[in-house]
Structure formats: C-alpha cells, structure tokens
C-alpha cells in the first residue's frame, strides 16, 4: 500500500515537472536574474538590475529575439551566497530559464557555478572580478561566463599606463591589507611595473575602516617617488588623497575601479582631487555612439547619470540576448557554445570577444580627474 502511494506521488510529481517544461518553451524567452537587491552589497545588485531592465526594454521594443519577447524572472539573493545557490536551482529547475544573470559579487557567483554546471544552464556575471571566477586549477568552468575584466588584469593595465602614459618610474603602493581585491591588484601592479622597468619605492598598508593615514603619509613624504598607487575602495582612498595633498604630496595618484564613486571627491575635497587616474569599466566621457545612446536612454528612464554597474548590467543583458539569438532561441548547451564563440561584441563597456577561459578580452578605461571632475578617458590595454 505504502509503495503504491510513493509510486503514485512520483508519477504526479513527474507530470508536474513535464507540464512545467512545456509551459516554458512557447512564446517568450525567460532570463533569470539572481541579484543582490538587499543586504550588504545591495547597491551593486540594484544598479546592475537598472541596466539589465533598460536593455531588455530595448530588446523587446525592437521585436524581441526572433519574434519572441524576453521575460525577466528576478529574485533577490539578499547578498548571501547560500541564498544565491538556492535561487539558482529554483530558476533553472522550476522557472526553466535560458540563462541566469548575476550575482554581481564574486563570492555569490562562484557559489552558483556548480548548480549551473549540473543543470547545464549558462550563468553570466557583470561584475565578478576575482581572478578565479571562470577558471581555476581544475580548468575552465564550462557554464560560467563574465563580461568584466578581472582584478589582476586591471593591475597590469594600470602598471602599463603608469609607465607608458604617465611616464613615472618610482611608485609607492598603499594597499588595504585585509582585502583580497586590494592585495591581488597590488601584486599584479607590482609584478608588471617592475617587469617593464619601474621600481616600487615603498609598500604601505592600512585596514578598511581606518580614517587616519597621516603617519604613513609622513613616512613616505621624504622618499623619492613620482606616483602613488592605491588599490582600494573610495572610502579610504578619498581620505588618503585628502591627507596626502594636505601634507604637500602633489604627485599623480592612481587607483582602480574601487575609486568609482562621487563620494571619493566628497571625501578628498574637490581642490585635492587633482591628477587622479583610475581604471574603470566604462566612462561617461566616451564618444562611441553606443555609449552616447546608452547614456541618453538611461537618463530618460532614471533621471540620473549611469554608473559603471548600470553600464555593466546593460551589457550583461545585451550580451545574453545576443547569445540567445545566435543559439536560435535555445538556452542550455547551445547557448553555452554561442556565448563561448562570441566575437567582437559591441558593448557600452567596450568591444570584446570571449577567450578560452570565458573571460572577455577588452581594454580598461583610465579616467583622469582634475579639480574633482572627470576630464578625460583613454582606453588602455596590455
């Protein structure tokens, strides 16, 4: 009797699953969004989603993918890796999505990848920059993609920019000793910069949350150097800039995408924010038509200037739709192959192809700031 009941339940369950699948593949293409909409890094997730929604609106207004409208299935992973994994499973098995966009942070995205490989559904992140996201010692992760450059690439690009464009030879690095992001950037900068012929005059450290950097600044003041590199976030970088300028250090100060916030200039004061150069994913000063159109459309919808996460979110959705179109509207394995074969995708954050490690091959944008304003941007490669 008991066994008969189990069999009956199994049949019912199977029936439900099958009907679920049939509903999925009809007149819409479903794309899952698994983002940090609340919790510690909610701003990243929310900004990315603003970009994604703008892109999907445009795709649908232009007739969708092969006549099929795109439908977003959006969940909040609460900035939690375990929650992101659960939601990924739900999106892939119950909602039957073609692919999943997000999460935005490396930790949560890495947690999602095994689920993607098990279910053979591609996952794409717009902002997971840790080096080992799509590839690690055991090889490339088949169903994982991203559209942003990784941390060590940024450090390498900035080192080249410093040596070739700024023509500086001796650099002081001030890094956040408690952050993998900062240490990774410092290491790749250090390696490349010494390789091309520069020297690192000193390496100093702080811990995120500190506010007084005067001791370190006084210490380096008498040293012989012609630029400072701060791989870190704007909260501390803004204060370091302020205190360094107050002590009369006027050499160029370089950073990475962690500098990308208006708060940086608020912290340092506009007068101190001179000769600042930082790498970023995108620049609003870019004059490419795709960038100009994006900025205009974004301003119309949200009434503010887009930031790098908005731009990455926009590219993320466009990249996925491009892949789905080339895979003939299919998700799963066909989409994975289409994404891996992407050539010369023209995005807001640059034109890129996907390499064998599922990373985009693209240049960083280096933004120059004078008097607290972004005055110019150049694309810098390796």
């Amino acid at each position, binding site marked *: 009797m008991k066994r008969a009941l189990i069999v009956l339940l199994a049949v019912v369950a199977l029936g439900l699953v099958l009907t679920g699948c049939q509903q999925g593949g009809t007149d819409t293409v479903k794309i899952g969004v698994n983002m940090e909409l609340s919790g510690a890094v909610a701003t990243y997730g929310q900004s990315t989603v603003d970009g994604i929604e703008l892109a999907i609106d445009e795709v649908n207004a232009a007739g969708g993918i092969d006549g099929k409208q795109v439908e977003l299935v959006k969940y909040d992973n609460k900035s939690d890796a375990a929650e992101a994994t659960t939601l990924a499973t739900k999106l892939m098995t119950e909602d039957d999505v073609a692919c999943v966009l997000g999460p935005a942070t490396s930790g949560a995205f890495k947690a999602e990848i095994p689920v993607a490989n098990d279910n053979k559904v591609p996952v794409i992140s717009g902002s997971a920059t840790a080096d080992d996201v799509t590839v690690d010692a055991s090889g490339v992760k088949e169903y994982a993609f991203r559209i942003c450059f990784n941390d060590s690439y940024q450090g390498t690009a900035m080192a080249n920019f410093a040596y070739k464009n700024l023509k500086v030879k001796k650099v002081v690095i001030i890094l956040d000793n408690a952050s993998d992001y900062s240490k990774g950037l410092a290491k790749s900068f250090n390696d490349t910069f010494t390789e091309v012929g520069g020297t690192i005059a000193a390496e100093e450290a702080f811990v995120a949350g500190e506010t007084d950097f005067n*001791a370190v600044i006084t*210490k380096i003041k008498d040293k012989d150097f012609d630029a400072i590199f701060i791989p870190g976030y704007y909260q501390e970088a803004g204060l370091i800039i302020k205190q360094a300028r107050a002590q009369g250090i006027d050499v160029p100060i370089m950073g990475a995408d962690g500098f990308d916030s208006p708060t940086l200039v608020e912290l340092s004061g506009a007068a101190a924010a001179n000769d600042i150069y930082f790498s970023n994913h995108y620049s609003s000063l870019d004059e490419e038509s795709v960038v100009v159109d994006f900025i205009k459309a974004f301003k119309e919808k949200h009434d503010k200037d887009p930031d790098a996460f908005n731009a990455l979110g926009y590219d993320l959705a466009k990249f996925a739709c491009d892949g789905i179109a080339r895979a003939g509207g299919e998700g799963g394995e066909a989409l994975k192959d289409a994404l891996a074969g992407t050539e010369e995708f023209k995005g807001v954050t640059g034109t890129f192809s996907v390499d064998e490690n599922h990373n985009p091959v693209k240049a960083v944008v280096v933004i120059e700031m004078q008097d607290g304003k972004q005055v110019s941007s150049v694309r810098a490669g390796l």
Partner: protein
Amino acid sequence: MDQFMQQVINGLSLGSIYALIALGYTMVYGIINLINFAHCDIYMIGAYVGYFCLTVFKLDFVTTVLVAMAACTVLGVTIEKVAYKPLRNSSRITALITAIGVSLFLEYGMMFLVGPNVRTYPEITGLLAEKFNIGSVIVSTQQVIIVGISLLLMVLLQFIVKKTRIGKGMRAVTLDADAARLMGINVDSTISFTFVLGSAFAGIAGVLVGVYYNSINPLMGYLPGLKAFIAAVFGGIGSIPGAMIGGYTIGMVEVMVSGYANSMYKDAVVFAILILILIVRPTGLLGRNVREKV
C-alpha cells in the same frame, strides 16, 4: 628630525581623540564599575548630529558642537536610566552584556535610519581650513583645535572632580556608594551627572572627528572605541589623568609604529600592549590598588 616632529603632531592629534573617548569609559567605570561599550556609539551619534546640523540646518561650527553635546547628553542619560539603572544591583556580567546590547542597538539602529554608506562633512572653509608651516613641519588649524580642546576639557574635568561639590560627590560614590548615600549624597543624580559629562565629551569628539577626517559612518565608533578602551586600561581604568596619558600613548605608539616600523603591525602592537598591561600591571599605570576585604 622634521619627519619625527611631523609624526609627533600626527600622534598628538590622533591621541587627543582617543583620550577624549577614553575619559568617558574611565569615568563611568570609576563610578559604577561598568565598561560602557555604548560609549563609542554615542560618539558616532555625536558625529551624525553634527553632520545634520551643518548640512541640513546650516548652523555654524560652535552651535553645532553645542547641539551635538546636548543631544549626546540626553542620549547618554536616557541609556543610563533605561538600560543600566534597573541592573544596578545585579551581577556585573549582566550589566556588561546589556552594554554590548545597547552598543549593537545604536550601531544598527543608526544604520537602519541613515543607511550604511559613508557620509562626508561639508567642506570647511576659512580659518578652520588653514595650514601653516613651522620649518618644514605642516600643522593644520584643525589639529591645533583638536589638541587644544582636548587639553582644555581635561583640565576642566579635573577641576570639576577635584574642586566642586558635585565632583566631591563623584569621588565619594567612587570610593563607597553605600557610605556616600548614608552621608546624604544623592547617588542616582551623581551617576547621571557622570554620564552627562562623558556623553558630552563623546559628542565633542564626534564632531571634531567629522570635521577633521570628513568621513562618518554608523560603525565609525567601533575601532576608535576599542583603542580608547585600551587607552583607559593602559592609564588605569577609573583614573582621569590615566585616560589622558593612555590616549596620548596609544596614539603616539600607533603613529610611530607606522612611521618607523611597519604599518601592517600597527594594530598588533597596540593590542599587544593591552595584553602586556593586563599581565604585568592589571590596574594600569595610575590605577588604584583595591584591596579586597576578607
């Protein structure tokens, strides 16, 4: 030599902030034997009150400091009445855990109200933004003001405790609360007055830090609070001159370690000092040696 003098200036301004916060710890500990962990969050709230005074209500600097002091005083006394007074006769660990609870409540309550992001004080212009050179040593007006106000407040505090009637009451309650009550001292209002002083000082420190570093967030009290606590223990918890000496020592040690050794070991050295003090001289530099009666 110039570099050394510059580091001394750096150490003095950092040490002043630690000393101001340490005073609050040490006074409350002296009078009710409680480590008031919420103290560093009152300092944070002082910084936020100052922020809103300067940005939303556009008050001048002096009024801002006074408003922040007043707000912190009200908050400090309220916390004492609501959270600590009912526990006065329970075990010390109960009060300690309550203090940690109040601290977390303030930190995350504030995060809920104003958001977790860093906020910046408006840019200060005029006299407060001046810098001047002594030889090749650069000193800013803000640094002078921070050190000046700290020293002034400590002298004032010393005067209140040693020379006034209420100060006498405070010293009496510190020695023996029951005997003080029998002598006709109002113990409750004396304790409240201690909280008033400590919280007002924290409020001033909050605004000064906001102006000086230009960066505030709901968790800004945590690390300086910890360092100030070490300063209080170093100087001898319960001793007011001890808190001053402790604050300046910790500030100076931090700066000198980053300046002449390795900035990565700064915090490690500070906490190592705490451990050493607790092993070698648990009462601190100027602490009273209390004999337990058997």
